């Protein structure tokens, strides 16, 4: 396995507060591998997605170091960690968006409901249909609210008006947006507020009935009220959808997720029930991150 020789630890980590950071993070900063602390309760859940010794390189730079983690079915899992820890890269690897980046090399695998995501025979378009993804910045298509929501069904060849209408209403209700837009479904989606646009993107994603919903910092471009609404929505999705979410906002992870995984410089450090991670994490390294002492 190629070692990453270029990656230098951030000076701030090594110089400013080594004592508070903890041995594992220092080891990681020095390029060593560490065992991940995965709580038993995570392993007891039925996984929808299994990340199995997954490593990823951008050219010679290794961004993810042998991460193994199950993502529980119908629960919300949050990936947290300081910038550059690999959480977004990991998320984008789930639906193989990293295929579009040059010089990316991976080892290990991920399995969606048992199907190998990186199997050469896997049809990437089919794979992406099985997942929904919502990005940092709301990206509604420049078309009506209605057409945005039923987009996936249309490209799948669905023509039946009744089916489309129903999918539109169910998805918009599921995304807690129906009451706000039901009277203007034909209006352009670009006229919605930022928070509404983001919920529309979630409605568009769930219209395709994905097996996993991937959220990449879904609230970072939203004001606190819109953030609150999207967080409420994420909570409501729990139990019906399996959500994997990347967030910078620690409080968002604590409010909206069932499980939280703490990553650092491409390694999974600790992964457990959110309530435990934010009250009594096993590792003091995690403690120093969630309390804002580090990162």
């Amino acid at each position, binding site marked *: 396995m190629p070692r990453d020789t270029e990656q230098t630890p951030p000076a701030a980590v090594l110089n400013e507060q080594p004592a508070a950071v903890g041995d594992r993070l220092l080891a990681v900063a020095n390029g060593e591998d560490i065992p991940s602390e995965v709580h038993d309760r995570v392993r007891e859940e039925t996984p929808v997605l299994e990340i199995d010794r997954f490593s990823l390189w951008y050219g010679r730079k290794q961004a993810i170091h042998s991460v193994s983690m199950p993502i529980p079915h119908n629960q919300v899992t949050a990936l947290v960690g300081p910038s550059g820890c690999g959480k977004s890269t990991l998320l984008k690897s789930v639906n193989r968006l990293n295929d579009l980046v040059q010089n990316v090399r991976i080892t290990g695998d991920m399995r969606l409901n048992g199907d190998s995501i990186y199997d050469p025979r896997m049809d990437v378009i089919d794979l992406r249909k099985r997942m929904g993804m919502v990005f940092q910045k709301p990206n509604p298509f420049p078309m009506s609210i209605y057409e945005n929501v039923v987009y996936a069904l249309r490209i799948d060849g669905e023509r039946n008006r009744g089916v489309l209408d129903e999918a539109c209403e169910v998805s918009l209700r599921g995304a807690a947006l129906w009451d706000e837009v039901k009277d203007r479904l034909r209006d352009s989606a670009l006229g919605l507020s930022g928070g509404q646009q983001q919920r529309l993107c979630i409605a568009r994603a769930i219209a395709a009935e994905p097996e996993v919903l991937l959220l990449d910092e879904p609230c970072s471009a939203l004001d606190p009220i819109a953030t609150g609404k999207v967080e409420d929505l994420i909570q409501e999705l729990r139990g019906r959808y399996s959500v994997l979410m990347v967030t910078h906002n620690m409080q968002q992870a604590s409010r909206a997720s069932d499980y939280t995984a703490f990553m650092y410089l491409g390694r999974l450090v600790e992964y457990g029930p959110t309530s435990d991670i934010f*009250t*009594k994490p096993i590792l003091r390294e995690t403690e120093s991150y969630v*309390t804002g002492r580090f990162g």
Partner: protein
Amino acid sequence: MAQHIERQLAQLKERILHIGTLVEEAIAKSITAFINRDKKLAQRVMLNDDEIDRMEVEVEEECLKIFALYQPVAADLRLVVSVLKINNDLERIGDLAKNIAKRASSVALTDGVELPPEILAMATLAQEMVRESLEAVVNSDSALARRVREEDDAVDEFRRQVREMVLAGIKAETEQVESLLGINAVSTHIERIADMATNIAEDVIYMVEGDIVRHRAGDA
């Protein structure tokens, strides 16, 4: 942010320790007043309790402020929650010291009733437990906190012995009933002080390790 909350938490710890010092002083003086039948000293203990009450409210307000403004998590959360509870326990120890002082100033202990050595022993041990539990708070020392928990049984045993002695005394010498009842009441207060020290110790274990050990005897 982290530095800010760290400063607040350090101040909070200082304040709870200040209350702890006042409370330790109150217990020591109330017991001395009781032993020496020193009404003046007893008066002082009763007056000083207002200061403890005032500081207890301040610490509680400080904790609520930290919850609202910083939303502490993990170790920080456990520290603030523990301080909130320890604060309450210290205030109650203050009240118990005041009750002992009241007995010292009201009960006529001049009728020749000897104080049983058990009550002196239990007073010493309870004071030691309070001192150790506060030391455990300062040093986040859960091992010391566990020792405090164990010491509570010895205080309970002393309390049982004092009670038996009082009962026997009442049966035998009826004219000393008031003094004996006074001794009995004071031993109850001391036993409660030791219970509060145990509570503090249990909060320290939670603060350090995240485990709630209350109502779980023997797994210390």
